[in-house]
């Protein structure tokens, strides 16, 4: 295999991914039609959707080269993106590409979901190993490790919303790193996030950060944005449009050829075309630096709210994850923040992840695009399933300690002593130590023994008279169980307990055998 192939493959995926980022511009515009003003509100406000859609159509009709169906495309792409993000926490990663996995891992990382990060990374490693060991394309160990290092770097980069004291992201450092060993290509920049967080300089007056929102730019400012094809376009802002009840702005950018386009996200550029880094208030280079020892809260009190996530994570669902994500030292980039803000509005995986930390499995499905009523119903159903599953697990374990299985009110130990009555654990559910509820139907008192029938056939004859049957292996296991528990002479044949069967139309079981068979069937054959 060519020495550079692994990196070339990654490059291809990165390019594809970069092209896919064009949808993000659309998504951000969509955000303006969702009502997120109420903490904990995750649903699309239908009225706002209608209003926002109409308003957006108006904007679209004003813009050149855009179709009337753009709204629909926006919705579709936004939902697709939400679904894609959802996969981060719900699995379905096995078939994802290297770059896609990196993206998903980065999402999980941003959600402080190390559990998913590790899981996704393991899948990436596995997939890479499969590819690396494919006959004809064996990689060296160095190449394999280079690729995994690249994966880690991409995850860090894609999740590179963390802004350090200098206003840079950790990921921005990677731009200057050497290409991966074995590659003759420079490391690609997989996302356009670089343009908003990378670089060294900051502190331009026109990059001030708005409280609780994104960067504000001014009319006449030189900016760049990414068009639908993923190309960076430069121009100057000719209009700044403020949406109703939103701190989110739409910019009309006029390019050198006179074309005007409405966009929701732009990056400032200097005269030489280099992007200007947004500066975090309080960070070095900020217009309003934080004083020594000043906390984020103190800074907010003095200068207005900082650009953390507390405005997008409902406090009632933030839980541990919310608190972590709101840590000002773990900032998302503006672009990523909007993405997650958006997914929260959709009840997306971000909300799901935080809900998981707060309420764990009971909230599974809350991230789906359901109505409030449907989500509540699903949560209730999940709670029932969680408890039922916990009950079954407890029963199988032969355990009677009910901690955590009943419901949130009864997440405690009912009794340590209870475990002593549990009996032996049995993976087959045999000696669960709990009373077995027998089915309503009963084994008949008498059954026939026909020519050539043995003991096992006798059991079968008895069961068949009431329409039940077992597999040959089950009959054998049942016969052995009865023999061990009650004894070998468990059928009364021709008036006497016997293990040598003679033709007898009215054979019967010795006392206790029918109950034993019923219990065995419940535990091992699913009788009900």
């Amino acid at each position, binding site marked *: 295999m060519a020495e550079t192939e692994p990196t070339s493959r990654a490059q291809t995926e990165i390019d594809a991914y970069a092209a896919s980022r064009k949808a993000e511009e659309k998504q951000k515009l969509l955000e303006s039609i969702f009502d997120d003003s109420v903490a904990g509100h995750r649903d699309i406000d239908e009225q706002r959707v209608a209003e926002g859609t109409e308003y957006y159509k108006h904007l679209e009709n004003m813009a050149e080269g855009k179709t009337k169906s753009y709204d629909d495309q926006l919705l579709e792409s936004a939902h697709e993106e939400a679904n894609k993000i959802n996969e981060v926490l719900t699995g379905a990663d096995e078939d994802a590409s290297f770059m896609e996995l990196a993206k998903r891992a980065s999402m999980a990382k941003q959600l402080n979901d190390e559990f998913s990060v590790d899981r996704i990374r393991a899948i990436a490693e596995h997939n890479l190993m499969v590819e690396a060991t494919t006959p004809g394309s064996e990689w060296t160990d160095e190449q394999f490790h280079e690729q995994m290092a690249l994966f880690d770097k991409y995850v860090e980069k894609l999740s590179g919303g963390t802004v350090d004291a200098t206003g840079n992201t950790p990921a921005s450092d990677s731009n200057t790193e050497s290409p991966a060993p074995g590659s003759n290509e420079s490391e690609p920049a997989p996302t356009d996030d670089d343009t908003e967080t990378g670089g060294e300089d900051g502190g331009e007056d026109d990059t001030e950060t708005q409280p609780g929102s994104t960067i504000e730019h001014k009319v006449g400012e030189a900016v760049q944005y990414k068009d639908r094809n993923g190309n960076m376009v430069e121009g100057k802002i000719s209009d700044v449009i403020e949406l109703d009840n939103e701190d989110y702005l739409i910019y009309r950018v006029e390019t050198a050829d006179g074309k005007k386009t409405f966009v929701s996200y732009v990056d400032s550029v200097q005269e030489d075309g280099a992007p200007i880094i947004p500066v975090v208030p309080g960070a070095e280079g900020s217009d309003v630096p934080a004083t020594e020892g000043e906390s984020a809260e103190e800074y907010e009190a003095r200068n207005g709210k900082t650009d953390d996530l507390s405005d997008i994570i409902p406090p009632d669902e933030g839980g541990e994850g919310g608190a972590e994500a709101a840590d000002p030292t773990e900032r998302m980039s503006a672009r990523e923040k909007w993405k997650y803000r958006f997914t929260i509005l959709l009840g997306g995986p971000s909300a799901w992840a935080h809900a998981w930390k707060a309420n764990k499995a009971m909230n599974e499905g809350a991230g789906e695009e359901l109505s409030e009523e449907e989500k509540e119903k699903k949560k209730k*159903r999940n709670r029932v399933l969680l408890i039922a599953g916990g009950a079954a697990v407890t029963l199988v374990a032969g355990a009677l300690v009910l901690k955590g299985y*009943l*419901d949130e009110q009864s997440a405690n130990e009912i009794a340590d002593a209870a475990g002593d*009555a549990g009996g032996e654990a049995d993976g087959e559910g045999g000696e669960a130590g709990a009373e077995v509820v027998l089915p309503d139907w009963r084994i008949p008192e008498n059954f026939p023994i026909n020519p050539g029938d043995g003991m096992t056939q006798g059991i079968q004859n008895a069961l068949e008279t009431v329409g039940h049957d077992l597999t040959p292996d089950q009959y054998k296991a049942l016969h052995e169980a009865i023999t061990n528990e009650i004894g070998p002479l468990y059928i009364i044949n021709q008036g006497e307990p016997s293990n040598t069967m003679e033709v007898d139309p009215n054979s019967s079981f010795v006392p206790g055998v029918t109950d034993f068979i019923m219990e065995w069937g419940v535990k091992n054959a699913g009788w009900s």
Partner: protein
Amino acid sequence: MFKDDQLVQDLGVQDLTPEEQQNVIDMYRLEVGKALAQDLSEEQIQEYEAIINGDQAVIDSWLGAHAPQFKESEMYKALELGYEDDPEKVPADKAYASLAWIQKNNPNFAHAVAEVKEKIMSNIDQYK
């Protein structure tokens, strides 16, 4: 004694963080619940929900119909013994009914648990 920490051992997730362990255990329980639900009708699930919500009329009715002698069972006695130590005072009949209901309506529950456990454990191997 069989507590969550023993479930941790049983699932082989000792190396995970406590939070991750709890997530896996919850996932385990939820998946078992889903597996059980496949064989249940909506009415049955609603009945179970009523039981775990402490609907005394449903609990009494169900126990009367399916386990009239439940107070004689070892399981009930054990649950009753633990009542005083239970800060939430979960009634023993509710706890008993919620367990017995599973046995009655999902007699194949042990197989479901085994299958889910295997599935969970095989997935755990990926991120251990």
